[in-house]
């Protein structure tokens, strides 16, 4: 299907907790799910990755314009990969990166890691596809 994916390294589990080894694990899982040739990394990444701007309470702080301005770094990084999907393994990242696309009109989807794991295993039902784009919405629907 030639759909391309990138992944956001969560600051919390990578830079602030387990470092590059868990970022490598994340890539192993993602590449296994989507195929090595369909994965495009952002630069910089892993422990040197930019925070998306969803952390530290920013999402609830009320400073919406500042949060989106902060997110410009991340938005540009994602757009530079030309990926169709950004995989987020963290809730705050998911909310922020999803909002950055909605607000800017960027053409990528933001998807939880668990959604892709279940999709790849063929066990993702029709009601569990909130964040998939039209290209994957009808692919391998469990129970259909």
């Amino acid at each position, binding site marked *: 299907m030639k759909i391309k994916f990138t992944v956001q390294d969560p600051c919390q589990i990578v830079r602030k907790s387990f470092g590059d080894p868990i970022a490598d694990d994340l890539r192993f899982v993602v590449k296994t799910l989507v195929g090595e040739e369909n994965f495009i990394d952002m630069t910089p990444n892993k422990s040197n990755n930019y925070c998306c*701007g*969803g952390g530290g309470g920013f999402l609830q702080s009320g400073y919406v314009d500042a949060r989106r301005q902060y997110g410009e770094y991340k938005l540009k990084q994602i757009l530079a990969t030309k990926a169709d999907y950004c995989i987020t393994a963290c*809730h705050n990242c998911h909310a922020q990166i999803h909002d950055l696309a909605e607000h800017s009109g960027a053409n990528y989807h933001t998807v939880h890691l668990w959604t892709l794991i279940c999709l790849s295993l063929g066990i993702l039902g029709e009601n569990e596809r909130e964040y998939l784009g039209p290209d994957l919405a009808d692919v391998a629907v469990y129970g259909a």
Partner: protein
Amino acid sequence: MSSETLKLGKKKQSIFIDKVKELLPEGGNLGLCLTCGACSSGCPATGLEGMDPRKFLRMASLGMDEEITSTPWVWMCTMCQRCIYACPMEIDIPQLVYYARSAWPRESRPKGILGSCDMALRNDSCSAMGATPEDFSFVVEDVLEEYREAQPEFKDMQAPIDKKGAYFFLNQNSREPVTEPDEMVPLWKILHIVGADWTYGSKGWGGENYCMFLADDEAWEHIARTAAKQADELGCKVFLNTE
């Protein structure tokens, strides 16, 4: 990079940075800045409110306590720690930001973060959206029942709450049970397929901790301890933080 020139006023007594140094291991290296700017050049918060990490640290070092404990920039820094990662002297600027947050009167801190923290203190769920333990168990059981019936391969799937002796204690971001319950299911399915022995807790199931972002140490600790105590009382071996 912010371009506004700092104007130093009359000599003030610097206390803030000294207090913070006392609290940090090795003083947080706060006095070691070489002013190289590696922190600011890779910080997405640089320029917001005319501030950046280097400027913030320098202002603290110069004793500009009033300015650094009142700038809203401390709520725009996510404390992601990229600055300390990039810093040749490993200066703990994020911790300085945290203490600057805690210098704000509690009621003046951002309403959204304050409200989410206070919501989590209302009951034992510690959910920033205020969902009660009863709300949570109702939603989990309802969704589980629906999926067991609709998807035969998962008719034996479990989503236990307070299962004694389960290996993994799992918490849950409130967003799913409160606003999009179907999104809880993919993770349940993965745990089912790999045969993981897991449980939620009726207490401390809320995965988010806005009291930490609020820099309210006492409330933050209350929430962390509520979840940890529940995991201990159930005899769980591993605490899985899904947040």
